[in-house]
């Protein structure tokens, strides 16, 4: 990344923090420094926009292939596990009162 004179922090320095910047997980001061850098650095703005778009694309991703429909047998297996859990929980005696 180019480093253009006059910027408070160099392109290289902000490069490692751009995801945290996009996720708003940086301390306010670091965030302001990156804002100040971006205000005068066209290449970094272009790069940040491409990174932001990458995250948006990931968030819009839907599976290309869906799983096979749940078979009756597999559903029964899950339902049985759920019912066993409920039964075991109901069988558990209540905790003894504190003395």
């Amino acid at each position: 990344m180019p480093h253009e004179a006059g910027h408070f922090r160099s392109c290289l320095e902000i490069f490692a923090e751009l995801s945290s910047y996009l996720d708003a997980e940086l301390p306010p001061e670091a965030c302001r420094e990156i804002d100040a850098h971006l205000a005068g650095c066209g290449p970094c703005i272009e790069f940040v926009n491409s990174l932001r778009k990458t995250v948006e694309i990931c968030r819009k991703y839907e599976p290309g292939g869906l799983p096979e429909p749940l078979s009756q047998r597999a559903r029964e297996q899950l339902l049985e596990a759920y019912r066993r859990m409920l039964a075991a929980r109901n069988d558990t005696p209540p905790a003894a009162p504190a003395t």
Partner: protein
Amino acid sequence: MASLERETETALARELLAGNVEVFDRFVESFRTRLFQYSYLMCSHREDAEEVAQDTLLQVFENFGQLREPERVRPWIFRIAKNACLMKRRKSVFAPTQELSLDELMPAVRQEDGPRKIEIADWSALPDDQLLRSELKDVLAEAIRQLPEIYRTVILLRDIEELSTEETAQILDISTDTVKTRLHRARLAVRQKLDTYLRAGAEVR
């Protein structure tokens, strides 16, 4: 969008904890596809992904009574899924961990007579409806599959499942700083692959 889905999941989990079997099928359907998607990108094999989804749900129902905070049902389930994927991987070829270096993920810079420019595709030309194009989806899925496992699991949990940094750290038993570092490198690597794809498309046009 994601927060609404999580509210629904929380409501379904509360009902299941209360013993309401009527929401069972809705709960299974809301998680089964997500679990399949996560596992498919983690394991790369469709059959493995189907098995991981079923094994995970089975463990979920066997242990449902241990879910103390219904609002955390999604990270709770994905922690089980992560372990199920690990078990599956142990049965297949062991792939050594490979680190992604920041240097290799930086764009090239060129400066001739004018201002410095980075070599980058025209991302602004990517309209929203193109995000759903199957070709782009395939490129994204392949870019994620090619990531080393430690990065792949972080980007899947953070950007696809939209879990928080803290939740991802708890699922993977790593620090939040490590989540942030791995996520950044994973995003940069995926960005690089998408950029290559977009530039190739521009050349064709």
